[in-house]
């Protein structure tokens, strides 16, 4: 079978530590990066909490995996969608999230923002254009 490129979207909808979904979803994203598909990642609903900066898990005895999100750019994952309404409903703004970037090889490794703030309606269109949706 010829090598085919599909549009893969990983949707993160849950808060980072109350359940293991966020962490195991991130493991899928990292492994999936090796498959050279057209990858995007979405954070919506409580999933937006995964990207909040300054996470400190020392009080709950769990590993703080949030620094790993900053490495997504190195895995050539450059399209990270954050749903605007989900942020607003939780009293968050883009400033509360980690500043995620990637380096554009074609522009002398210029640093570019990975996060695309989109409305619920815009996100719906993005999701409709995908081939494979991984839902966590």
């Amino acid at each position: 079978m010829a090598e085919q490129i599909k549009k893969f979207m990983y949707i993160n909808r849950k808060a980072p530590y109350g359940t293991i979904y966020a962490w195991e979803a991130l493991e899928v994203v990292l492994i999936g990066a090796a498959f050279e598909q057209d990858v995007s990642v979405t954070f919506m609903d409580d999933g937006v909490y995964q990207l909040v900066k300054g996470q400190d898990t020392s009080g709950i005895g769990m590993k703080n995996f949030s620094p790993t999100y900053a490495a997504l750019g190195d895995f050539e994952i450059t399209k990270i969608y954050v749903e605007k309404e989900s942020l607003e409903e939780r009293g968050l703004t883009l400033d509360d999230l980690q500043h995620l970037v990637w380096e554009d090889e074609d522009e002398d490794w210029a640093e570019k923002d990975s996060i695309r703030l989109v409305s619920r309606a815009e996100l719906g269109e993005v999701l409709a254009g995908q081939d494979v949706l991984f839902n966590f």
Partner: protein
Amino acid sequence: MKFTIQVNEGPYQHQSADSAYFFAKAALEKGHEIYRIFFYHDGVNNGTRLTTPPQDDRNVVARWSELALEHGLDMVLCVAAAQRRGIVDDGEAQRNGKDATNIAPGFRISGLGQLIEGGVQSDRLVVFGD
């Protein structure tokens, strides 16, 4: 149509395992192909043969095993998720120095790449979970 099915929840706790099973069974009956069933998160608990439900309840694990053997299904438990939750086959027991195995017939343990590959190779990836 060619399907890969992802099961994200364990048996009995959550209906996902039942729904995924009925979906798989119905798809096969309609003549569709199931490329792979991939068990992730607590879904790996669908693959322990030590499950012993009450006699008047369905046996979720045995049901999967029977479906797999009947149709030659490829049912994969994620290795990282399985290690966290104590689902062990011979290879894992040897690698991690465990004194027992509990994997059910028809299942195998492998990596997350198998899930991604399922997404690449199938017409549809269907996820059962919350």
